[in-house]
């Protein structure tokens, strides 16, 4: 168990280190996020009355779009320079690679959220420092990264890589987005927990089932 976790962390650290050298992806995701929020601002005319209701939706839609940038990149850097072959040669279980990659994608999403939330909070005067909301952010991003990592590993081997990922990803990620938007919106409106549980349950179930599938299938996806 300990060597397993150590290998997962090694892969996570590798991805974070690679990103830290260039900071290309994070910069792109961050600017993209701000631009999407800007577009939503004009598309929805986010005045004070509307914004309290739609904040959760705007934020999750933004994260979902920005997330595809990260997912595309995370497998593309492995494909370039045949780094993936090196990873696959390592004498470890393939699920280690899956878990490490998922955690790396999760970190990128959370990093983007960490930058975005204060800015959104200031721009629109919405209080986002809410324990429940942050929990939903974590659960939702976990589910998103778990399915996204599986699908990006598939899309990268297709002819129309970047084109394919969103098409594969969005239908399967909708349960996460629906549950996350509902739960975060309810938390932001300070509703009682009894209304929020169904959405949280869906997030938790998804966050368990999808990684389990990733564990089973990742080996079959990356094999040559």
């Amino acid at each position, binding site marked *: 168990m300990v060597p397993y976790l150590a290998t997962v962390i090694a892969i996570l650290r590798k991805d974070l280190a690679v990103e830290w050298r260039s900071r290309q992806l994070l910069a792109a995701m961050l600017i993209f996020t701000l631009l999407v929020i800007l577009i939503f601002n004009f598309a929805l005319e986010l005045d004070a009355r509307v914004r309290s209701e739609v904040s959760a939706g705007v934020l999750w839609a933004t994260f979902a779009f920005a997330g595809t940038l990260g997912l595309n990149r995370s497998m593309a850097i492995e494909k370039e320079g045949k780094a993936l072959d090196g990873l696959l040669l390592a004498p470890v279980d393939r699920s280690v690679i899956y878990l490490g990659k998922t955690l790396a994608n999760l970190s990128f999403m959370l990093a983007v959220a960490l930058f975005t939330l204060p800015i959104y909070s200031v721009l629109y005067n919405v209080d986002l420092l809410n324990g429940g909301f942050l929990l939903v952010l974590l659960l939702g991003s976990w589910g998103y990264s778990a399915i996204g990592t*599986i699908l990006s590993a598939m899309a990268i*081997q*297709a002819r129309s890589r970047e084109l*394919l990922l969103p*098409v*594969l990803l969005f*239908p*399967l990620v*909708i349960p996460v987005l629906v549950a996350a938007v509902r739960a975060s919106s309810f938390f932001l409106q300070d509703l009682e927990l009894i209304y929020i549980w169904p959405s949280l349950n869906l997030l938790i179930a998804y966050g368990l089932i999808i990684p389990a599938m990733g564990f089973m299938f990742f080996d*079959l996806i990356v094999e040559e």
Partner: protein
Amino acid sequence: MSSKSIAARPRFLTLLSTLSALLILAATWMVFFFAPREAVMGEVQRVFYFHVSTGWVGMVAFLSAAIAGIIYLIRPDKKWDVFAVAAVEIGLVYSFVNIVSGSIWARPTWNTWWTWDPRLVTASVMELTFLAYLLLRQSMEDPERRARFGAIYSILGSLTVPLTYMSIRIWRTIHPVVIGSGDPGAKGDFSMTQPMVTTLMFSLLAFTVFGVTLLWHRVRLGWLSERVEEFRLKSMEM
């Protein structure tokens, strides 16, 4: 499968095609002349029989594609891949008919063609998922990898099937649950009389037989195009 059985159309398939044509005709007759007119909704309620039948076959088709996918992953054999594509394509057509017929019924009953109800959302997500499945297959060149990825995606995608089935049973919804009990807020609910049940059962049978017939035709088509591909590769070698 030997080459002879592929080339010639099996007798039984011709028989089955005729049978399903007769069954569909009979089901149509029953819907219009045997089933009584529903008291509140009137004639438009007759859409219900085909709506439920197509929905049922669509879901079963998607699930069988996923099961074929599981078998393929355990024991890679091309025939399961051919079966899975056939099932997905038929599932897509059936589910589309299901959604359109529901929409036609919703216009007078709910006073709108479409509403973002959990059932309608999950059903359209299911449809989109399997459209994405076809897109995924199209952009994979290597046939072996195409089959493997298709199998994995259909298994992942099949999660939308129970979600669609359960959506009217776990969430607040205006979609009626005619079989079993549903949300008291559902609009257009009704209880079936005996002739209605008979008609529904008969249409379920008719559409299932028709679905199996289509599936068989489509699997045969898949095999034939595999053979064409083989011949082409052979002629290129020469």
